[in-house]
């Protein structure tokens, strides 16, 4: 009965919709697996909304970011729906570039969105972007290798344990590397990892007067730990490895541990893609006992430019793509393990999902453990765990990332890299007027 009603509802909606003008939505999105799946499944949306045609622009992350930022800042109006990160949302909302999402429909259930994700997308009680998937970071490790080496991974490991285990598990002859970490320069690549790692060592990007902190001891500990670990137990070519490269390495069985985005869990445990699917265990990102773990918080979100004239159609699409029904649809078509994670509380209480996704619990715990409002041990003037939510951060973050990546490639020492980072960051912050 209920089903029949909803069918009629859909038919009525379709009829009403088709009487309105046919609309074309341009959707800019990132070429991640979950988005590509959304594109594939969007025919279901088309069935319910035959009057809306979807044009997809799928780009690699950096290209996407550059294209959509240029477009929205210059008011180019080329896209109706943008895929943007947690970093952009508060900055763009402040500029009044985004349309408030007030027409997501009665069934949307905003309250169901995970609080830590939702709070970053909300300004004055209004949602400006809807999360498509959310992630924190955690340790993924090879249970078989740990067992063979007689090691047991605790649920909440320390950096001391992880470093020690990584060195013991490395067998370069057999091409097994103890730990794979990001090394490719970029604020969303190696700096996402290193900023979060630094938080757990008690470091921070800036102090309360916006002075860069790379000349402090916690940063030095962070970087020397990271460099030493990668030198002894990391894969070759680590300085050009980002998320995707490490994923490929882990999937082909070449990493014993990998600390990265929680969404990776569904890829490494998928037998169709991964040679080690049945051997993966999960643990929280490591800490040093100072009260902060080294996990980040990120979500890819869908938003609409404030200037868009197709707001209603765009909201209809966003509502579909980020709804509970979409999760059910993915589950039906591709299985529960492939559902975009990290956005809705109801997903984590769904027994079917928990059964299909052994990483569900740790993903949720990791997301809940991240606190973008208070990311560091010491108080800081900014928000954001693995980024600093100011417009200048992308540039500074990437430049600092280059310096650290050079140190990883062996071109400079840790001290030189930190010195470079400090100089760079100070220069840019002075130029931007934060440091008087």
């Amino acid at each position, binding site marked *: 009965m209920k089903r029949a009603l909803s069918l009629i509802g859909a038919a009525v909606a379709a009829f009403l919709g088709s009487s309105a003008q046919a609309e074309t939505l341009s959707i800019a999105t990132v070429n991640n697996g979950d988005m590509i799946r959304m594109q594939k499944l969007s025919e279901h949306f088309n069935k319910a909304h035959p009057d809306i045609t979807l044009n997809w622009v799928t780009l690699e992350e950096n290209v996407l970011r*550059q294209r959509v*930022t*240029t477009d929205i*800042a*210059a008011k180019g109006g080329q896209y109706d729906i943008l895929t943007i990160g947690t970093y952009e949302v508060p*900055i763009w909302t402040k*500029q009044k570039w985004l349309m408030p999402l007030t027409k997501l429909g009665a069934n949307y259930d905003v309250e169901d969105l995970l609080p830590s994700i939702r709070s970053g997308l909300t300004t004055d009680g209004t949602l400006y972007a809807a999360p498509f998937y959310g992630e924190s970071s955690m340790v993924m490790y090879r249970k078989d290798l740990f067992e063979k080496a007689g090691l047991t991974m605790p649920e909440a490991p320390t950096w001391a344990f992880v470093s020690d285990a990584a060195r013991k598990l490395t067998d370069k002859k057999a*091409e097994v590397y103890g730990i794979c970490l990001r090394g*490719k*320069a*970029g604020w969303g690549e190696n700096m996402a990892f290193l900023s979060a790692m630094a938080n757990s060592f008690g470091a921070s990007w800036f102090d309360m007067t916006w002075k860069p902190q790379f000349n402090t001891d916690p940063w030095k500990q962070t970087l020397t730990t990271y460099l030493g670990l990668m030198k002894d137990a990391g*894969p*070759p*070519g*680590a*300085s*050009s490895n980002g998320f995707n*490269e490490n994923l*490929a*390495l882990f999937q*082909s069985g*070449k990493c014993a541990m990998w600390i990265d985005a929680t969404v990776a869990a569904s890829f490494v445990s998928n037998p169709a893609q991964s040679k080690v699917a049945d051997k993966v265990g999960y643990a929280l990102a490591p800490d040093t006992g100072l009260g902060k773990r080294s996990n980040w918080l990120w979500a890819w979100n869908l938003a609409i430019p404030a200037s868009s004239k197709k707001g209603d159609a765009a909201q209809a699409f966003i509502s579909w793509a980020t709804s509970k029904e979409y999760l059910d649809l993915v589950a039906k078509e591709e299985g529960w393990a492939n559902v975009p994670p990290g956005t809705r509380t109801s997903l984590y209480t769904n027994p079917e999902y928990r059964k299909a996704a052994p990483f569900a619990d740790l993903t949720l715990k990791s997301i809940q453990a991240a606190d973008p409002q208070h990311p560091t041990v010491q108080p800081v003037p900014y928000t954001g765990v693995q980024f600093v939510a100011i*417009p*200048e951060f*992308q*540039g*500074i973050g*990437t*430049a600092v990332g*280059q*310096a650290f*990546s*050079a140190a*990883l*490639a*062996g*071109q*400079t020492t840790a001290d030189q890299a930190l010195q*470079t980072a400090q*100089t*760079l960051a100070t*220069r840019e912050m002075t*130029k931007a007027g934060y440091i008087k």
Partner: protein
Amino acid sequence: MATAHSRAAARLTMSPAVILLLGWMLIPLVMTLYFSFLRYNLLMPGTEEFIGTLNYQYFLTDPAFFSALFNTLALVGGVLVLTIAGGIGLALLLDQPFWGRGIVRLLVIAPFFVMPTVSALVWKNMLMNPVNGLFAAIAKGLGLQPFDFLAEAPLSSIILIVTWQWLPFATLILLTALQSLDRERLEAAEMDGAGALDRFLHIILPHLARAMTVVTLIQTIFLLSVFAEILVTTNGGPGTATTNITYLVYAQSLLQFDVGGGSAGGIVAVVLANIVAVFLMRMIGRNLDI
């Protein structure tokens, strides 16, 4: 021959091209020049203000600036030397009669048709990747440690990729020039007892001088703004090891969205390009009677 009438016609026929290029050059240049004196961040609209030469000060004192300058020159110079030397070698080889010449020629020119993005992606992932790449597989097969090209020798690796792309072009130009060489002169020299090296140094090389100049000029134009290859493979790193001026300006204006700083960088790049241009034109003047 050049009557007043044809002079007028010449001016008329030339004007569309000149006006278009002038517009294409001047309008963005003037806008860029104007932006370069502003504090103008795309992400912070409404805060634009005149700040004098501050953007230039920051760009020119950027620690990455001098390495970018060096990298630009090293990239252009390295690729030029390699493509010209390799091009001469290939031209001499393809000029010989041998079986399947037509097919080998097709194989040799093929890289020229590959888009830079694709060739960078292919080299980075499928050949140079130290774990899954083909070179690593070969090294492992020989019992060697795989070499991590883009981390250990980033600039050389990029020079290699770009050389691969431009080698066919140099080869084609040099081969065409070589084929126009008077065979009788060569044979006469051989009769006189000149060795192969002598003939190469004293007849072939001078004959190819103009072609080499042309290759230099055209390739320099394209090599000064090599970008896709760097963006795809190394993102300018590690550190600033592969940042050239074009990439540095890109980082300023499109990674930081600092239009003011990026514009200042753009103007600096224009000035540098013009210095190179003047230098090149001098050289062309000597070798190419246009």
